[in-house]
């Protein structure tokens, strides 16, 4: 028995080493991203395409688009690899550093210029010189992919935020369900009429500006004439009268409802499982266009309407904020020319229209976005129209990371630790310090 014990570990090592060889050898051969020669035929180029669209709803859609591309020609073969959201970019960075990146990757719209400045994506201007497809895209989105006037990515999809409102709740409160609030004043008036209070607290809150998908950043754009944190000459423009007034206004909502109520209610639904609008806890709610698919899935009985974000005062503009994703060719990709062919296809009308119709997602290609077939859905149509008022900002390179400096100040306002003026003054000072350090 004792002898066996001595032999046992050694046997285990031997077995595991054998297994190891068996397990690893075949894979290492099959998983290289290099061109594979189809036997007997002309060599086909295989492209590695990394996305984070792995869910049961998204995956079939993107794979259908890839299939169509693979069928449409016989030179290029695209292989789709799903990587979880967020981590996909960690891997992207590591693989660029190691010189074996994907051929095409879906990336965040916000930092195209930062990545370009860091040599992480491929300058597309030589391809665009031969094949100018700039006019396909919304100009706002196109500007976003530029770095020193050269394009480093192609816009793929975008989003915009709208005011969803519960028509049934409107009727109950004696409001006209076809007349959503247009201005902040109306928004407040409606919200108070929609509040339903019982002794246990609020049964229904008419509206609270910071629930939903429209944060302080977005409101500051909305209330400051559509201007972001940086002006046209890339200077910090944080402490502006418009932004101070907006922050004061946001704070007044919390003061009215009470911080405890706001915190407690937000904690109940902020997590994503129980949606406040669908479950009827909130009568008006700001969300993206694709939020409609959630309503269709979980709140079939809801009678809802959508409207542009109310404006600060008549004429100041229904500014909304947007985001989205781009497709780009990582620096050092093995087949940039074939990759270009593929991203051109991904942003062309057919693929974009298919994406839009299946997801009700706003796409970057204007013709596809405005396709009448997709626009039969009223919410989708409203979101497309809303794009005209939607702001997408490129962050000046020297201010990268500015949000970590602004957020603590705006948080402090809602915790009664700073006044709106103090907060924005402090934020501007901090961001200016960061920018001067980085210059």
């Amino acid at each position: 028995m004792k002898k066996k014990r001595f032999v046992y570990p050694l046997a285990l090592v031997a077995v595991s080493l054998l297994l190891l060889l068996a397990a690893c050898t075949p894979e290492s051969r099959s998983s290289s991203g290099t061109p594979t020669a189809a036997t007997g035929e002309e060599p086909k180029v295989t492209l590695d395409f990394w996305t984070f669209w792995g869910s049961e709803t998204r995956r079939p859609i993107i794979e259908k688009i890839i299939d169509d591309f693979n069928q449409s020609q016989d030179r290029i073969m695209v292989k789709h690899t799903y990587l979880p959201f967020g981590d996909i970019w960690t891997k992207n960075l590591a693989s660029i550093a190691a010189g074996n990146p994907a051929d095409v990757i879906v990336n965040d719209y916000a930092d195209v210029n930062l990545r370009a400045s860091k040599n992480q994506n491929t300058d597309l201007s030589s391809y665009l010189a031969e094949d100018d497809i700039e006019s396909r895209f919304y100009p706002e989105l196109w500007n976003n992919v530029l770095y020193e006037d050269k394009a480093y990515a192609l816009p793929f999809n975008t989003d915009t935020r709208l005011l969803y409102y519960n028509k049934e709740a409107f009727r109950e409160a004696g409001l006209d369900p076809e007349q959503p609030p247009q201005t902040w004043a109306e928004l407040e008036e409606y919200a108070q009429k929609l509040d339903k209070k019982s002794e246990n607290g609020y049964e229904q809150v008419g509206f609270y500006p910071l629930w939903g998908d429209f944060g302080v950043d977005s409101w500051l754009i909305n209330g400051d004439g559509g201007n972001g944190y940086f002006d046209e000459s890339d200077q910090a423009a944080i402490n502006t009268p418009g932004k101070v007034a907006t922050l004061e206004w946001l704070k007044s909502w919390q003061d009215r409802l009470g911080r405890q109520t706001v915190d407690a209610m937000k904690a109940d639904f902020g997590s994503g499982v129980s949606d406040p609008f669908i479950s009827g806890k909130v009568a008006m709610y700001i969300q993206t266009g694709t939020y409609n698919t959630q309503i269709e899935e979980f709140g079939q009985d809801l009678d809802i309407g959508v409207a542009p974000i109310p404006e600060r005062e008549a004429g100041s503009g229904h500014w909304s904020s947007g985001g989205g994703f781009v497709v780009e060719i990582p620096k050092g990709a093995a087949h940039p020319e074939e990759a270009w062919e593929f991203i051109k296809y991904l942003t062309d009308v057919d693929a974009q229209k298919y994406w839009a119709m299946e997801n009700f997602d706003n796409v970057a290609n204007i013709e596809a976005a405005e396709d009448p077939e997709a626009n039969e859905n009223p919410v989708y149509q409203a979101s497309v129209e809303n794009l005209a008022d939607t702001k997408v900002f490129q962050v000046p390179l020297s201010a990268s990371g500015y949000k970590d400096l602004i957020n603590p100040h705006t948080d402090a306002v809602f915790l009664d630790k700073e006044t709106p003026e103090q907060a924005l003054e402090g934020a501007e000072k901090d961001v200016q310090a960061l920018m001067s350090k980085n210059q």
Partner: protein
Amino acid sequence: MKTTAQARAPKNARKKLSKLARREELQGYLFILPWLIGLFGITLFPMLFSLYGSFTDYDVTSRMNFIGIDNYARMFADDPLFWKSLYNTLYYVALMVPLTTIGSVLLALMLNEKIAGMRVFRTIYYLPAVLSGVGVYFLWIQLLNPSTGLINTMLGWAGIPGPAWLSDPMWTKPAIIMMKLWSVGGGMLLYLASLQGVPSQLYESAKLDGASAFRRFWHITLPMISPVIFFDVVTSFIGGFQIFQEGYVMTDSGNGGPMGSLLFYNLYMWNQAFGLFNMGYAMAMAWVLFVIVLVLTLINLRMSKRWVYYEGGDD
């Protein structure tokens, strides 16, 4: 390695012993050889690379210019978020390490009893340590809900009004520590394993001498498991400084919680490295953390001479 051993050998007066000592040295290196291979093969290069990188403006993909101590100077003189994240992390570590250590020792003592259903109890108490991923964080977000969460409900029974855990900057870190306490199962497992090594004869003779239960714990159990306590404390310190996910997942903004109260050191470092690509700066941060942890470990090591008892001798 061999040469140093041989070079030393002639100094030894007794030849017989030197041969034995040499054999001993050789065997020593044979035993740690796998680790040395790993060290030189895969660990050392990335570490030294990051040390060098901390003196550069390395951004992974476009540049790596030597800039002297700029990163370090900037960190100490010019970066409020560095100090904030360091403060948050120190706060967390200072509370978490003693609490989880005491918690897991006590739990292990209870689970070392021989009463009915102990196997099941041990499995249950270890369970939270196995659970990982977003599910757990999500559960805790629910438990910590200020109005409907279980924790404030229970506090309410005791007549205590619970705080708004995750939205009040004063309570975010205690909330995270509470969550950590709930998964002390890993530490408990270690102590359980270690308690099994305490010879029962020691207790028997102590009992014959009339020592009280507490004295037996203090004079027998504690010294006997002290090597493992030492291990647990050192690794908890190291692990505590690496806290990251909690500040990332458990807050709305995903970037450090209300007023940056959950902006932990590693979270800030991560943002610098993978969000802004300031890898050189992140590497400098990593080495500053290294020095902090090293100093703490050395203090720990010094003090351990006083309270850690090695049955097998300490050489």
